[in-house]
């Protein structure tokens, strides 16, 4: 089966609008993806039909919300193939998930002189929480470098792993370069030295099959809004034996078992890490996004996006003085480039005026920009609803911008 893009696009009415009098071309999916009608309907149904606070009431709407909310936990469990539903924790997004682990894992396992290992191509969200942890604990952050093609130097990992390494955190797909990292190999290396691994799947979860059991990762994090779900919701998968040993990240409602001024005991997993009223409407929206992705089939998504990326690469390669960032064998989702001396801000500005949305700048990955000695890149990122004609228009627009400089 291949994808019927025309009918898929009908599920995303936002794509059909005109901006500055031109048909809008949305190629900034790695920043946030668009939301299909079924997700909007699912959230609308909550507000119009059963908006009650989950886990807190004995009345009809609260019970219905609880049931729908917990159904999504089962959906996520299946979607990522987590061994148990207790290992799926709802958060605000990837950033909160990483901060949760950096705080709680750090409290339980990281001491002065210990080390955390990250890669040079991480998003700031997978750098700064570890820096904060290291500052707090007087621990050290070490970095796995990448080469000029964007390939992570995995061969340097064994030497970087020491008896003091407490965790390795790495992205599955680089948001700035689209490089797919060999995470299975990385996990094997880390596990051979008993070092747990956190995978940042923010740019991977909707572009490939992420099977946490098969991968064997200890933590995996992702956001809803990059996988066709709503904003303000994300997930943390964590192995039960680790989560059980980690103290709560935030205190409040739901995460407690018993509260008194002489002491408080905490709830079981996953609730221990879900303090306060959760974003239940968004969680339910996320469930609908998973339904949508399952409906069209991740393998169909992979095949079409691969074709789009190859096509974009081929078309853009014809442009004089274009330079790509991220040229490894395994690329996904994004194509990052600069043309001649044209500053990414200038390019983005002009493309916007021509009705094309791309991301420009450092993509919250300044170490990647520093590696190449550039201020930023132009990044086009794709979703299954994009079509080749849009890539043709991007290519023509880039050529037109060049002629102005």
């Amino acid at each position, binding site marked *: 089966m291949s994808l019927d893009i025309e009918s898929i696009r009908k599920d995303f009415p936002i794509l059909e609008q005109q901006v500055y009098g031109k048909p809008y071309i949305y190629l900034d999916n790695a920043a946030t993806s668009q939301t299909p009608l079924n997700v909007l309907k699912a959230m609308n149904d909550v507000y119009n039909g059963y908006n009650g606070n989950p886990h807190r009431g004995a009345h009809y709407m609260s019970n219905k919300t609880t049931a729908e909310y917990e159904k999504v936990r089962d959906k996520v469990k299946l979607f990522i193939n987590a061994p148990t539903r207790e290992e799926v924790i709802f958060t605000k997004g990837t950033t909160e998930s990483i901060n949760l682990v950096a705080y709680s894992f750090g409290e339980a396992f990281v001491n002065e002189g210990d080390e955390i290992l990250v890669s040079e191509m991480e998003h700031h969200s997978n750098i700064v929480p570890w820096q904060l942890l290291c500052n707090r604990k007087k621990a050290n952050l070490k970095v796995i470098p990448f080469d000029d093609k964007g390939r992570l130097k995995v061969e340097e990992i064994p030497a970087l792993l020491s008896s003091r390494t407490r965790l390795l955190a790495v992205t599955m797909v680089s948001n700035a370069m689209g490089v797919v990292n060999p995470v299975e190999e990385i996990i094997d290396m880390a596990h051979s030295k008993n070092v747990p691994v956190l995978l940042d799947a923010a740019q991977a979860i909707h572009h490939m099959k992420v099977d946490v059991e098969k991968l064997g990762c200890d933590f995996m994090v992702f956001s809803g809004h990059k996988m066709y779900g709503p904003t303000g919701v994300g997930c943390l998968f964590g192995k039960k034996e680790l989560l059980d040993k980690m103290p709560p990240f935030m205190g409040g409602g739901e995460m407690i078992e018993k509260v008194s001024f002489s002491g408080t005991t905490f709830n079981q997993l996953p609730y221990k890490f879900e303090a306060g009223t959760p974003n239940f409407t968004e969680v339910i929206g996320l469930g609908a996004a998973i339904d949508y992705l399952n409906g069209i089939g991740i393998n169909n998504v992979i095949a079409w996006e691969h074709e789009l990326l190859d096509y974009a690469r081929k078309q853009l390669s014809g442009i004089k003085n274009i330079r790509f960032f991220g040229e490894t064998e395994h690329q996904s989702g994004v194509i990052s480039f600069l043309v001649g001396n044209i500053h990414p801000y200038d390019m983005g500005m002009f493309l916007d*005026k021509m009705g094309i949305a791309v991301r420009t700048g450092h993509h919250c990955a300044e170490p990647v920009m520093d590696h190449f000695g550039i*201020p930023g890149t132009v990044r086009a990122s794709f979703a299954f609803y994009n079509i080749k004609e849009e890539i043709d228009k991007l290519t023509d627009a880039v050529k037109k911008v060049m002629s*102005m*400089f």
Partner: protein
Amino acid sequence: MTIDEVQQGIINEFSAFDDWMDKYAYLIELGNELPPLDEKYKTDQNIIRGCQSQVWINAEYSEGKIEYRGESDALIVKGLVSLVLRVVNGRTPDEIINADFQFIDAIGLKEHLSPTRSNGLLAMIKQIKLYAVAFKKING
């Protein structure tokens, strides 16, 4: 010419463009013509880091008037810097403190001042005013 008359002059210049491409082509031209800022002024003290692009601004005070120099790594922003410098250069601190820079809106380039653009321009204008306030204070 008053500071408002200089702004009006720019507005008149831009009214000749009926196409956004012409407008931006002119900005590029202005950006290319802006004399590069001497490397000695490209210091950490003078830099305004945006998420998208950066701006450097330096100011000197002489005989009651301020001379600003500036540059950006992005050409469009450089063109806008050139326009702002045209408005503020050779003015007294009071003139700059009271200026509203309404010309940017009037020529349809207000979007570049949006905080979300993160190009350093908004911060640059603030910095220009801060210099004026400081020079006024120092020189009574």
